[in-house]
């Protein structure tokens, strides 16, 4: 019988701890498929954040490290500078990257570190119980914005990808979503492109932001969460390539 599909080897054979409808599982699989398609399992080092994906090494069969909240880009700097031949990626949520770790991501980008960042934006702190994140939408109800997020006093959703894209040290930024089949395939293309830029030693940091559902703390059914990304999140976080320095040449 002809095999038409098999699980990609870098994704481990186990069930995850993620909630039903969570986007991390899809993002992990895309990353694993990219690693296998590029045949870089034996030269890749991954960095897991503090957040729901802290246990990513339980699902991705590669060398991985778990680091302090928000510090992944600094850890990645230490790794990549001493191991320029390795592929280094950090996998960070919006609390990790856009709140506590803003200094680290900004300065890794500023220095032009040749690392790849997978930035999962689900507009909320998931692991700690659904608190407001810098990326939380206006009016969105969370544990720490019970009346809905108000701009006056808590600010607007932070568009960190746009902020990073203006820095000369950043070579590629694209915002994707995993809200449907076409979007998922597109996200995989973006991840692959980001990793290839690192593999070909393009100067600068590559980042893929992924709008990802958190049905549990959005208090939605998984299908509605997917729809909310497409109907609401993309209005504030528009999809598409924000920067691709190499493509311009």
């Amino acid at each position, binding site marked *: 019988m002809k095999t038409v599909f098999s699980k990609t080897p870098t994704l481990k054979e186990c069930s995850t701890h993620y909630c039903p409808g969570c986007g991390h599982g899809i993002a992990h699989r895309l990353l694993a498929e990219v690693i296998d398609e590029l045949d870089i*399992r*034996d*030269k*890749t*080092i991954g*960095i897991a954040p503090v957040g729901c994906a*802290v*246990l990513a*090494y339980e699902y991705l*069969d*590669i*060398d*991985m*490290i*778990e*680091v*302090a909240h928000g*510090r992944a880009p*600094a*850890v*990645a*700097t*230490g*790794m990549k*500078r*001493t*191991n320029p031949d*390795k592929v280094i990626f950090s996998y960070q949520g919006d609390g990790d990257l856009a709140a506590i770790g803003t*200094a*680290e991501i*900004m*300065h890794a980008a*500023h*220095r032009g570190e040749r690392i790849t960042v997978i930035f999962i934006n689900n507009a909320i702190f998931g692991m700690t119980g659904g608190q407001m994140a810098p990326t939380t939408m206006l009016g969105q109800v969370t544990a720490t914005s019970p009346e809905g997020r108000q701009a006056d006093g808590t600010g607007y959703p932070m568009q960190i990808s746009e902020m990073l894209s203006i820095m000369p040290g950043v070579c590629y930024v694209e915002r994707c979503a995993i809200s449907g089949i076409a979007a998922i395939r597109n996200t995989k293309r973006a991840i692959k492109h980001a990793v290839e830029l690192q593999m070909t030693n393009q100067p600068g940091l590559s980042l893929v932001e992924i709008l990802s559902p958190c049905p549990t703390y959005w208090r939605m059914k998984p299908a509605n969460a997917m729809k909310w990304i497409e109907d609401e999140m993309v209005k504030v976080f528009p999809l598409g390539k924000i920067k691709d320095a190499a493509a311009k040449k």
Partner: protein
Amino acid sequence: MCGNEALAEAAIRAGLDAYFGYPITPQNEITAYLAKRMPEEGRVFVQSESELAAINMVFGAAATGKRTMTSSSSPGVSLMQEGLSYLAGAELPSVVVNVMRGGPGLGNIAPAQADYFQSTRGGGHGDYRTIVLAPSTVQEIVDSTGLAFDLADMYRMTVLILIDGILGQMMEPIVMKDAPPRKDLPAKDWALTGARGRNQNIVRSLWLGEGVLEQLNEHLKQKYAEITEKETRCYCHQIEDAEIILVSYGVCARVVRSAVDKARQNGIKAGWIRPFTLWPFPSKTIAEAAKPDVPFLVVEMSMGQMLEDVQLSLMGKAPTCLLGRAGGGVPTVEQVLKKIEQTLDKTNNSTLKT
């Protein structure tokens, strides 16, 4: 070559692969020296955006099995405590230098020994230790640096080199030798190098399963006990016949050495103990020297921090007292001599409290 520069060169001679640091006085000579020398050697130098980032860069480089170091001074080392805790939890080797200055807060930039508690009690959150080396001459700084890297690799942990603004700025003649890694160090088979032909390696400090973290804590306890047994180092001088024993470390020990020599000339039988490892602390040596009528005078550039370790070592078996200076104040030989005389006078009058 000043103490800071000597330390930097010694780190290169010990095989430092990568240095990460952020400017702060009085340790800037280390950063500036390595900014020039590391690229010459084809090695890594990065000026980080903060001490938080510096220690996490160390975390990343250490996880791939490289010899790595950062340096800072007191307020900056406070910022590094998060990373030091993670390094302890993940059991990664690293060398961290603290060129201490006055505190608390921004304090000042004058020499001090105010970070004794922070250095010897772990400093960050969680149940852990760091080895703390306290050299007292520039030559000893050089020798401590090679030793620090070997101890870090041997025990997979952070080794802190604790000096102060005087030692960092002081110039003394030194002999600089290459200090390549010791031959008996364990292989770094845990390092993240890409899973080529082997199972994945994971560097972590999160252990959620019931009882799993306690197993790690138990393992760390055993490791720390082994280090206490094997690596405790101190120097003693004329303590056998002493009627008073002085305890001091780092630059203070130099003052104490002169004061004890003068006291002997004046007919007072003084002796000294100088802990070289502040953790593990030479409690055994101090306890063995204890006699009920021989007071221990602790001289430190802080207000009674090492004093507590001396008291814990003595368990009430001998009286103790303190000559503490702080905020940039350095004890003089005359002050130490006067304190020796006062202490003995009080002891003889049986008024000294333990």
